[in-house]
């Protein structure tokens, strides 16, 4: 098993890109999961793109594995996009009722990276808004405190 090349994992512009090719074996998938975790940790990645354009068949195992990787990435705070699903693969997935719930899809890698940027920007905006709201609350609380003091002084 060791002579089979592992699935490449590429770090690019703060995102982790995983081009899956052919039909990966179980050991390759296990290795992939660990490598993604390690890379996300080491590079401070914010997005994960899984490119399936070279996968001609997607069975239930691989579908589940991809979903697991996506869920895992989300748990560690990384936005995930799956891209390049072929029409035949999509038809099989739909017919078999295997879907990728909670996973965003994109047409190709370029769009996937675009979407990741958008998702990250969205998250940042949401965070900023939350911070601003907190700040406002803090100011309001301080004001209340001041007002209380004033009342006390009187």
């Amino acid at each position, binding site marked *: 098993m060791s002579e089979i090349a592992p699935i490449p994992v590429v770090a690019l*512009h703060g995102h982790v890109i995983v081009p899956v090719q052919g039909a990966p074996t179980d050991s390759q998938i296990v290795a992939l999961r660990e490598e993604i975790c390690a890379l996300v940790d080491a590079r401070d990645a914010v997005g994960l793109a899984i490119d399936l354009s070279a996968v001609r068949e997607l069975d239930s195992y691989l579908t589940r594995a991809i979903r697991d990787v996506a869920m895992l990435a989300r748990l560690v705070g990384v936005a995930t996009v799956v891209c390049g699903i072929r029409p035949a693969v999509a038809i099989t997935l739909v017919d078999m009722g295997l879907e990728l719930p909670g996973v965003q899809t994109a047409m190709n890698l370029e769009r996937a990276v675009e979407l990741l940027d958008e998702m990250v920007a969205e998250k940042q905006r949401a965070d900023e808004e939350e911070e601003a709201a907190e700040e406002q609350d803090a100011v309001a609380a301080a004001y209340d405190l001041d007002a209380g003091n004033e009342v006390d002084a009187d």
Partner: protein
Amino acid sequence: MTNGVSDAACKVTAPLFHADGKTPLRSDEHPLALALGGASSTMEIAAASANGSRRFISLSAAPLSTADGKTAGAVSVVRDTTEQHRLTSAIEERNAKLEETQRANADLVQRLRLAIDDLSTPVLEVWDDVLALPIVGVVDSRRAGQIMERLLEETVKREPRYVIIDVTGVEIIDSKTAEHFMKLARAVELVGARCLLTGIRPAVGQTLVELGLDLGAARTLRNLKHALRETVRKVGRQGNGASARRTNGAANGRHDGR
């Protein structure tokens, strides 16, 4: 003596052939000869007439036996079946022709069906990054499969961000049809475009609600106009966002390089 009789009986002026009209008939194969041997038989024979054409004869022969069981002679009945042969071959010819026409018709129907399928599911590029698929007529599972293949193929080829499926032209939506549309929408989403479903008329919507059918995750809009307005707005915004991102990316690249 028997041989003499048989030779005399078989001696005819015209040469005889088997029913195929080519193989010459040997004298010992002649029904009369067989009858003299004690066996009755019936045979189709072709005879060459004076003008070179073939006449067909049905020849039956039976042995005549004496009281003690010996064959005393033979009797034969000859019927001219030329006319029957002609009619049979004419009918066969007609049948062959008919079959050929039928096959040609079947081919034509097949080709017409393909043409109609092509015509009835046009995939239109209505705006930058927006594909529209108006569906007209009845959607059975065969057609649903074709629509699915065609739409996904076009989607991958033209790489739109949005795909609008317009079902204004679908008269009846039952649970099966709704399921087909759901699958279509899900497959489009998997391939990587956002899918919008439009044109569900109030009557159809009522049926769907009464049947308890949920179109689930599919985003539905009232008609093509609304869908187009929304997608064009979003594409415009995304287009700007994408160009901003690109300049951003370039700036980042420079920054990283420094």
